[in-house]
């Protein structure tokens, strides 16, 4: 499966030394493309973030070195910044707890039945094939005040008569969790699928019960999958603005950084603020990711 491939640790083999002119020809177009549409935009993002409003043309911005924008946006949007990472963290934890048993079943227990394994895997990635926005809207309607979930919870007195699910942080975290479960599940599956059950047998043989075996052997051996799964969930979740937008699952008390960037860029046309927020988001993610990867001891994610 294509998507599974990106999650698994790649086999690194010593490349033979050959004429590097061919390598250059192969690399040049793609690298040029990446530089033009990834590095340069990043630089223009940095430049934009430092611009000041033009004094002559309203709505235009002049190049400057105005780092004050950063201070302003952090002050103005600290709630959204913190909320983004908190929601992303919650969604990552929930997605991991949800996906691990499922991935374990598909990758280890279902090995004896390859067809079942394949079928279950297709069902895990099935959400990829239907519009992400429509899925989220479907949840919005299922969880809406008129839906049976809310009425059932109200009947059970879990929810008060005035309570809602949609528009609350709960719905946003739920939506983030749901939407990124496949991203969590696939890398977990790829490592668990390769898990050698003989290690589990050896652990069992050495007086480790099911729980100790899981904690001491299964989890450490599936760590690469856990690391890539959490990264593939955390990063997009932190920057997401669909789930949190008020047309979908969010409300005014649940806006995230993505929503703020989007409204500054596309609605208020305050490009420097949006750019500064983007840089901040990117910087925090890079710091978290590199610290996390270093801590979990899997440097070879590339």
């Amino acid at each position, binding site marked *: 499966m294509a998507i599974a491939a990106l999650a698994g640790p790649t086999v690194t083999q010593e490349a033979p030394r050959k004429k590097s002119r061919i390598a250059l020809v192969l690399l040049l177009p793609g690298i040029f493309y990446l530089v033009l549409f990834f590095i340069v935009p990043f630089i223009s993002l940095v430049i934009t973030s430092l611009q000041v409003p033009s004094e002559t043309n309203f709505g235009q911005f002049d190049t400057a070195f105005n780092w004050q924008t950063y201070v302003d946006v952090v002050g103005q949007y600290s709630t959204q910044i913190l909320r983004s990472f908190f929601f992303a963290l919650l969604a990552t934890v929930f997605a991991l707890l949800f996906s691990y048993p499922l991935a374990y079943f598909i990758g280890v227990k279902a090995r004896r039945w390859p067809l079942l394994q394949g079928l279950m895997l297709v069902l895990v990635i099935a959400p990829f094939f239907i519009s992400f926005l429509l899925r989220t809207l479907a949840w919005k309607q299922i969880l809406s005040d008129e839906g049976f979930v809310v009425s059932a919870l109200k009947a059970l007195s879990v929810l008060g008569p005035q309570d809602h699910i949609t528009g609350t942080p709960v719905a946003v975290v739920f939506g983030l969790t749901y939407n990124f479960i496949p991203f969590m599940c696939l890398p977990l599956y790829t490592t668990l699928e390769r898990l*050698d059950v*003989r*290690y589990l*047998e*050896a*652990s*069992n*043989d*050495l*007086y*480790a*019960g099911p729980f*100790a*075996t899981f904690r*001491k*052997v299964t989890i*450490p*051996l599936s*760590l690469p999958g856990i690391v890539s799964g959490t990264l593939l969930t955390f990063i997009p979740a932190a920057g997401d603005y669909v789930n949190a937008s008020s047309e979908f699952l969010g409300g005014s008390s649940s806006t995230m950084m993505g929503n703020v960037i989007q409204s500054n860029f596309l609605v208020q046309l305050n490009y420097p603020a949006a750019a500064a927020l983007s840089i901040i988001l990117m910087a925090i993610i890079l710091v978290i990711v590199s610290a996390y990867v270093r801590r979990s001891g899997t440097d070879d994610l590339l």
Partner: protein
Amino acid sequence: MVAGSFAEAGADLELVGLHKRFPGFTAIDDLSLTVPAGSFFALLGPSGCGKTTTLRLVAGLEEPTSGQVLIGGKDVTGMKPFQRPVNTVFQSYALFPHMTVIENVAFGLRRRKVGDPVGKAHEALRLVELDHLAARKPLQLSGGQQQRVALARAVVNRPALLLLDEPLGALDLKLRRQMQLELKTIQTEVGLTFVHVTHDQEEAMTMADTVAVMNKGAIEQMGAPEELYELPKTVFVANFLGQSNLFTGPVVESTADTIAVDIAGTRIVVPNSRAQVHTGTVTVGVRPEKLSLLMENPVAVAGQNVIGPGRVIDVSFSGVSTQYIVEVPRLGSMVCFAQNMVFGPVANLGAQVWLSWMVDHGFGLADVAEQAGAKQIGTAEDLTALDSEAVV
């Protein structure tokens, strides 16, 4: 289990009427055996004979379809592997790749909350002479070193029973011979009950006190290595354990001490005590090294079987001995090992020879070789060319 009951010598293992059926085939068919405490027991057999399954049943990694497993007299059939006083040295070693050598060895002790696990693990590593590599990861070790770590990881727990699942299979010949000696030494030193599964007949014979030869899910014959070799009871054992020259024919004469079998006109005499069947069509045999190669027809002597004349069709020199293949008309080809007592071959290719052996060296089998009348040459290598047995 009484505390310390296996301190001196390990516990005995008893299998009672064990069956294991997998979808589509029966791996173990009514297996019963007793392994006395403190012994080195080998289960020998070709790929797919059920020996590894037997081991997994003892370890608790498989559940028997029916039957019982008793360790030290206690029924452990329903117990999970981690509840059994048994440790396994796996064929693949199964050393945890994410732990250092010392953590691997201390793993079982930690799970059982034994005091000073690291200290005891170091002692076990000293036993296998690998303490200096304690901080390495298993993948940084050679095959032989990994094997010794796996052994230390199992032995350190002082199990009542130590199971060895072809642990030497992945090693090259020289290292394998060396490890065989070391394993035997360690077993004698620590006095545990060892159950060793292997398809290498030489390994089984050098190491074990008792060897059980398995075939098709059942035990063919069990006993001390010398006994199995000198007096095989079935065609399978005769061929699997070493090589044999086998002949099949009707019993034509029966005295108080011997039977005589007619093989295409040649009489072969076997002692009654060494024959499993005394009437009808029987298969008799003799080991290749028991044969004497004679350049002329010997004078008939009581207590000697003579075959010939035949023609030497192959001579292969193997250092200690020379193997001759002799084609005898109507009897087929026979294998003969001759010690290299003189320089150069005793008989040249194409020479006319006679073969003789003492009646007391022959044996009669309980079953009949499929190839009637002719020779049966089989070696362990023929049967075990495949890798380890597959457990589905």
